[in-house]
């Protein structure tokens, strides 16, 4: 156990300050060790207490090991326990001294008091010193045969501990089969339960290498064992019941009679006071009836009441755990819970994590009969003091509107939101109105009237601004002022920091231009000029594309930019049903709370390359994990129209989501044409490099088109002597190893241009940028304003690696770079390359 850092220790004077105290204790312990005077136990106890309290607050008292062991010869059980605790803590770092304790522990294992036998055996197994395992086998073997059940429960877990210290010793001693025998024959249910835990762990770990273990693991799910456990279930403690029920949930009954037998037997478990037992029972019921649709339905009805009771009792944390499970059930079968919507109303003082789940459930259960009440209730929350919840509830109103056919009332509500004149309410409502219009274009008249009254100056949030601009472009013929509002927005182009908004502005001006050319011409020219000069890559590209397509043929341009739109009928779900089913299979575990399957957060390859360690302490999620999630979502997004708001939930929940997933498909039809048209245009334009003077805007359309192209992207940097392999690969473990071994070749501070900082919206952007310079990221982490990256690069045609740690502070605009290299001599060249790549970030 690594003691917490010294600096975090409480400075209060009553607490010992360090070395002198420890040596003092050492002296006192030594004096007491041999003493047999009456009352010596009491003074020992005081001393031991001091030692333990030092240990707890993180002072290293391992130097007292010898003295502690000498003092341990006592009949006082409390003293013994303190001593065992101490030994357990420090044996691992003092394996040699641990040998000293073996003797007295082994002796205690043969004590006549079963308590002492149990305690000694537990401590013996907790030493965790690999070269002492030989001393464990004997006491464990006799512990398993002890006639006292307390000793047996300890011994069973002891076997599991032994397995974790030395698997081969445990298997060689044939302990698993002894445990199996105990599990099936012991009279004490705690022994049985511990055997089950231990065997599950051991056989699962062995299953990958041993056929036999695999068979044994399967055998745990066989009918005789399951029935044996089920028949005794009432004798088990509540915790052990959870364990057994978890196992039963994996059992595959042979026929429906068996299913009903098990359910009848377990039905009363739903009345258990322990919520964990109830949830485990629910899991059994759910899993057993998966293939029986009717019964499955009845199960939902049956478990509703117990779940709702659990939600309303216990601490907020407990009810959160239950609510997460209720949430997944509601999402699977909302119609079953639609009459219980009132249970999901939020109380004013509930923590926001509870409210958030409740809001999602309210959204899901809304149907024709309860929509009015639910929306009324949600509107109450829009005025909530807790702003994130207020936003969440406005979004919920929007989602209900998108689900329902009868949206009259809801549209009115949304429009009322716009009139509330609170920035965040307006912002959320704007986004919703936009979504609504995409699904129900027939509402445009009502909505546009209200939207037209909103001053664009009061809308600051990028998403809301983008939504407003989209509406201005799309409905410019209905909005009197649309061209002028757009024009004023174009005038303030430089003050607009969000790339997303600028993209939308470009498109909106284009759309407006096709509808009201004379009024928009000015704005379009200015927008294209500004767009082409923009440092944001996507904005630049889109402006250039518009420019070229206009030049090529105006009517083609109109077909591309402003095609007749079909109303969106169904918005895509962000999570695939496969993932949802996987989460459901892992009911009653963390997966449900995190809303992702367990492999996403327990497997190393999904979690990212690094364990939490001191050196790389700040990295939580590796890029690889993020990429996996994103690519999974992209697949989803490709075939359907992924909407901004539906993906927002993901964004708030998982840091791995990156913005591009919804910016790309935002303009639906336009982007799909984009690719095919680009090629056509490229060939149509004969001399793309003819112009470099495009920076001035022109008034006439002819001039606008005649301007030609702006300078091609800045000339490639003078090719450095160092060439990097663009397809370099490096194993994370190799990286870690190298990082530890290599000395720091260069350590520099480098400032980042304001454009770079501005483009630094998501770390992914930087990663992609660096990748284009053949510098690959292996891990990243941190939160604004501090980000940390680990990059690597490989020299072309040689497998020489460069490793970089780069800490970027976006508020100060500084990057701290540490470079380590296989070949020290080229590290300077690499550093130059790295810095030039970094400095170009955001400026293209």
């Amino acid at each position, binding site marked *: 156990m690594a003691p917490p850092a010294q600096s975090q220790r409480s400075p209060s004077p009553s607490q010992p300050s360090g070395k002198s105290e420890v040596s003092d204790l050492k002296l006192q312990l030594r004096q007491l060790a041999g003493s047999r005077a009456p009352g010596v136990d009491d003074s020992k106890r005081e001393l031991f207490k001091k030692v333990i309290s030092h240990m707890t607050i993180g002072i290293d008292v391992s130097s007292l090991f010898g003295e502690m062991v000498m003092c341990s010869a006592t009949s006082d059980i409390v*003293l013994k326990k303190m001593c065992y605790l101490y030994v357990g803590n420090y044996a691992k770092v003092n394996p040699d001294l641990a040998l000293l304790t073996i003797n007295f522990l082994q002796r205690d294992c043969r004590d006549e008091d079963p308590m002492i036998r149990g305690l000694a055996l537990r401590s013996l197994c907790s030493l965790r010193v690999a070269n002492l395992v030989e001393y464990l086998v004997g006491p464990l073997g006799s512990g398993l045969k002890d006639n006292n059940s307390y000793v047996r429960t300890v011994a069973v877990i002891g076997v599991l501990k032994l397995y*974790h210290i030395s698997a081969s010793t445990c298997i060689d001693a044939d302990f698993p089969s002894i445990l199996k025998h105990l599990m099936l024959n012991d009279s004490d249910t705690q022994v049985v339960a511990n055997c089950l835990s231990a065997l599950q762990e051991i056989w699962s770990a062995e299953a990958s290498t041993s056929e036999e273990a695999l068979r044994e693991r399967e055998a745990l799910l066989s009918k005789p064992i399951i029935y044996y456990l089920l028949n005794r279930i009432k004798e088990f403690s509540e915790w052990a019941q959870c364990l057994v029920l978890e196992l039963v949930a994996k059992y595959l009954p042979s026929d429906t009679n068996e299913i009903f037998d098990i359910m009848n037997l377990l039905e009363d*478990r739903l009345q258990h006071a322990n919520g964990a037992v109830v949830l485990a029972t629910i899991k059994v019921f759910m899993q057993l009836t998966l293939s029986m649709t009717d019964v499955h339905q009845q199960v939902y009805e049956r478990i509703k*009441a117990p779940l709702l009771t659990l939600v309303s009792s216990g601490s907020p944390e407990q009810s959160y755990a239950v609510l997460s499970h209720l949430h997944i059930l509601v999402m699977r079968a909302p119609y079953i819970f639609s009459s219980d919507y009132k249970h999901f109303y939020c109380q004013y003082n509930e923590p926001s994590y509870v409210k958030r789940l409740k809001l999602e459930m309210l959204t899901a259960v809304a149907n024709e009969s309860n929509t009015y009440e639910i929306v009324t209730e949600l509107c109450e929350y829009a*005025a909530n003091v807790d702003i994130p919840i207020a936003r969440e509830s406005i979004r919920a109103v929007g989602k209900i509107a998108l689900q329902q056919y009868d949206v009259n009332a809801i549209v009115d509500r949304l429009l009322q939101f716009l009139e509330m004149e609170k920035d965040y309410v307006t912002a959320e409502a704007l986004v919703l109105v936009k979504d609504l219009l995409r699904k129900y274009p027939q509402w445009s008249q009502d909505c546009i009237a209200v939207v037209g009254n909103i001053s664009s100056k009061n809308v600051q949030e990028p998403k809301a601004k983008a939504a407003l601009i989209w509406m201005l472009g799309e409905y410019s013929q209905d909005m009197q002022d649309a061209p002028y509002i757009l024009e004023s927005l174009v005038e303030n182009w430089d003050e607009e920091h969000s790339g997303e908004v600028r993209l939308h502005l470009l498109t909106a001006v284009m759309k407006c231009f096709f509808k009201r050319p004379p009024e928009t011409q000015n704005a379009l020219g200015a927008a294209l000029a500004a767009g082409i000069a923009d440092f944001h890559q996507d904005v630049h590209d889109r402006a250039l594309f518009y420019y070229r397509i206009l030049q090529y043929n105006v009517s083609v341009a109109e077909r591309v930019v402003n095609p007749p739109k079909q109303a969106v009928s169904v918005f895509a779900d962000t999570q695939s049903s496969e993932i949802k089913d996987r989460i459901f299979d892992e009911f009653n575990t963390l997966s449900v709370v995190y809303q992702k399957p367990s492999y996403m957060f327990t497997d*190393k390859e999904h*979690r990212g390359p690094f364990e*939490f360690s001191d050196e790389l302490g700040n990295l939580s999620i590796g890029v690889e994990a993020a990429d996996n999630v994103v690519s999974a979502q992209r697949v989803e997004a490709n075939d359907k129209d992924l909407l901004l708001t539906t993906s927002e939930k993901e964004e708030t929940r998982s840091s791995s989501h990156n913005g591009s997933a919804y910016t790309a498909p935002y303009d639906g039809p336009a982007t799909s044409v984009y690719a095919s048209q680009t090629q056509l245009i490229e060939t149509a334009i004969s001399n793309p490099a003819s112009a470099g003077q495009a920076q001035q805007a022109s008034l006439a359309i002819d001039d606008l088109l005649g301007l030609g192209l702006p300078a091609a992207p800045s000339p490639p940097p003078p090719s450095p002597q160092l060439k990097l392999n663009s397809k370099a690969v490096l194993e994370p473990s190799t990286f870690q190893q190298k990082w530890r071994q290599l000395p720091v070749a260069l350590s520099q501070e480098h400032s980042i241009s304001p454009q770079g900082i501005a483009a630094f919206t998501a770390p992914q952007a930087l990663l992609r940028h660096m990748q284009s310079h053949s510098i690959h990221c292996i891990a990243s982490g941190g939160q604004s304003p501090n980000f940390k990256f680990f990059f690597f690069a490989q020299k072309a045609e040689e497998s020489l690696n460069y490793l970089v740690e780069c800490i970027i502070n976006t508020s100060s605009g500084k990057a701290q770079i540490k470079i380590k290299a296989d070949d020290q001599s080229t590290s300077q060249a690499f550093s130059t390359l790295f810095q030039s790549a970094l400095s170009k970030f955001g400026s293209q």
Partner: protein
Amino acid sequence: MPVAASAIYFLNLRGDVLINRLYRDDVGGNMVDAFRMHIMQTKELGTCPVRQIGGCSFFYMRISNVYIVIVVSSNANVACAFKFVVEAVALFKSYFGGAFDEDAIRNNFVLIYELLDEIMDFGYPQNLSPEILKLYITQEGVRSPFSSKPSDKPVPNATLQVTGAVGWRREGLVYKKNEVFLDIVESVNLLMSSKGSVLRCDVTGKILMKCFLSGMPDLKLGLNDKIGLEKESQLKSRPTKSGKTIELDDVTFHQCVNLTRFNSEKTVSFVPPDGEFELMKYRITEGVNLPFRVLPTIKELGRTRMEVNVKVKSVFGAKMFALGVVIKIPVPKQTAKTSFQVTSGRAKYNASIDCLVWKIRKFPGQTEPTLSAEVELISTMTEKKSWTRPPIQMEFQVPMFTASGLRVRFLKVWEKSGYNTVEWVRYITKAGSYEIRC
């Protein structure tokens, strides 16, 4: 999939470690630093009680001025982990007699380490029952009762009890006076709209028992709940007696209750643990008698004045009374001056919670005191509609009243020695979250 906890920490609000117990080696020793750095010192604290950092998940709970943190490295069972923490705290409380806070932990840390060793082994929960643990973990630290010399005293069937099946009761208990105390405690949750319609209303109740009974008694409890009564009249083939019957939405029982018998005969029969315990919990949503009606009118007169009138009506029997009634009426943050008139109790403005707090110590049934107040506001230019009107909240206790109407019809005690018992039954209704929007 193992559900084992890897470590458990007790921290004070500053993040100092009070207790740490590592059960498994699969997490590093710096987990507590990770918790401090990524949860305690960020805004994350309180946003979600389950968090993932690196490969580990942290479950944390604040209890008085202590954080209890469980660290797991696998896909663990969350409900089980939180329940474990709650049960463990209850166990500690029963050892220190009441309070569970930083001081109590500092004063009893050796005991807590002892208990942590017993209640969880290698991350798997073991025995958490205070009745059994108290048999062999005592602060006196004497050798356990079933220890060495057979001549000492008759060894009770202790081995069974340490881990055994009937975990909740010891044999051979003797009381001079056999008594049972039964408390029915209900809390009413209400959410009322500003128009006076009930949006949501339910009662969560629990039956608390205190048993001082000799031997191994068998108890049977009869309530006026619908299912129980119907079943009874079916068995005795006579029509259901008229009078109020209660429909319980859901019931959960202490582990001592024979659930099979409850399911077949609908009677609550059990062998009680010794001392205090929670026999059952129930939930009712239909036919709730609200003890109080609140009729607020809040008028904003211009931008600097408000008029608040609140009438509270007690709708329970005239002979009963409520105790400790507190009505919190929210006012805007920029309140400058308030003046009150109340027909009963006392009112004052509490600036720290932005509320007018109206307290009535004893509130008889069938009365309707009123409060009228004038509130002056500091005029501000920013955000004209900034006040969101939080709901009025109410606290109260009404003895001898149940919002659900639940009554104990009988409590029978059988013991083979056939002693007489004295039974005491009390009812009380408290406010849960009693909110009235205005």
